[in-house]
């Protein structure tokens, strides 16, 4: 069965030449888009059209285009990754839009995620948080056999659920405070639930939180918007665990 065709769409998109310049919205018209195409394919078609018209194509992040790398972003019609649940933008399809609609596309907005060009933001802040403590130090010895360290099934499951975080930044984009707590809590949790991660649990929580604050992310007010917009449905119970880990580390010092 052939997919329906959206005859005409208006694309209102944020254009910004570079990090220093002041950006503004531009509106483009695009015609005959199949509802079966992905959102990024629509963006590709629009870019070809812009190139033919002699306009600089719109810069946006993308890589694997199968929903696992966390590279694509875009705040579409007021929601990170657009009007669908548990998907990244590359997995969003045009069937979620109506013919004749105006689609508003903005970059992630946060002090810690400055715009580089158009819709591309600098998410190095996440890497810096990971470098502050999102690891397990293994300084010597061979790899132990997996089954020699007993781990309860539920702990392994919870750890894996937290490890599903792809670091896309939708939590920051969705949060009214631009808070990175869901990201940080996922990275703290997937290690905190495992014996290997417990050794450095206290310093990890302290270092990652202080790096997060230093980089200019806001504080958590428990609105749960992050969980709702997360393409991997990371639970806010991880944030409770981060709070617990952090308070324990601070009180015991």
């Amino acid at each position, binding site marked *: 069965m052939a997919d329906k065709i959206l005859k005409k769409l208006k694309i209102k998109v944020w254009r910004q030449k570079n990090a220093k310049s002041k950006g503004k919205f531009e509106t483009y018209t695009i015609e005959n888009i199949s509802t079966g195409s992905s959102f990024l394919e629509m963006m590709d078609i629009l870019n070809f059209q812009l190139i033919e018209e002699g306009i600089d194509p719109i810069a946006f992040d993308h890589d694997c285009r199968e929903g696992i790398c966390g590279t694509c972003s875009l705040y579409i019609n007021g*929601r990170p990754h657009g009007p669908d649940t548990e998907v990244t933008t590359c997995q969003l399809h045009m069937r979620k839009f109506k013919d004749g609609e105006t689609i508003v596309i903005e970059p992630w907005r*946060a002090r810690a995620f400055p715009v580089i060009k158009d819709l591309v933001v600098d998410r190095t802040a996440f890497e810096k948080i990971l470098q502050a403590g999102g690891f397990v130090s293994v300084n010597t010895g061979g790899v132990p056999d997996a089954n020699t360290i007993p781990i309860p099934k539920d702990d392994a499951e919870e750890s894996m659920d937290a490890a599903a975080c792809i670091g896309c930044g939708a939590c920051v984009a*969705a949060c*009214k405070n631009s808070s990175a707590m869901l990201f940080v809590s996922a990275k703290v949790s997937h290690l905190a639930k495992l014996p290997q991660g417990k050794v450095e649990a206290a310093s990890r929580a302290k270092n990652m939180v202080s790096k997060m604050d230093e980089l200019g992310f806001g504080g958590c007010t*428990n609105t749960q918007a992050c969980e709702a917009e997360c393409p991997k449905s990371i639970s806010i119970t991880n944030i409770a665990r981060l709070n617990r880990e952090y308070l324990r580390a601070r009180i015991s010092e």
Partner: protein
Amino acid sequence: MSKFLTASIGRKFVMSLSGLFLVVFIAVHLGLNLLLIFDNSGDLFNQGAHFMATNPLIKIMEPILGLGFIIHIVWSFFLEYQNWKARPVKYAKKNMSGASSWASRNMLVLGGLVLVFLIIHIINFFVKMKFTGDPLLAEVTINGEHMHNAYALVSSAFINSAALGVFYILGGALLGFHLSHGFWSAFQTLGLNNKHWLKRWKVIGTIYAILIAVGYAVIPLYFMLGLYK
């Protein structure tokens, strides 16, 4: 300690603890004020008010309560400003209603309106009882003890002005909405939450919020509907 208070989680910890302290106060305050509707001679309420005004433990708690309010209010404005700074360029189009509740996104608005209510409430009753006095507060004697007739002041206020009653019902409702997010949120911030307790705290918080809103609405309604006669 300074490190703790400059960290985002440490700051939230202060909001959460001061909030829970106020949650306890609100319940005690409601419990005492419900005495208004159980004895239309006013003796029960007057004795309760007299006890609260003279008990040494309550006298110690009074400034601590004031401090709790000030910390919770001043700190909230400071935190909101910090969070506002974290997004220098705002979104042109936002659609947040599906992802989060209105109350959770507008705690400062709800809290600010509750603050307006609180100021008027304090001027109406607390200031008169404690400092300026009022002809209605003339002394009464119950079981040989002299005390102010607080019942006369409160009951006549609601009997004479339906607008005041509506204002109080609205104040209670605003507090209820504030608590609908604030109650479970406090436990989340303290780290006392997991996948089981998330649902439990929310249910307990919702029940508490409804009890508070309804409880505080019952008192003005009792006088407005003439049930005291």
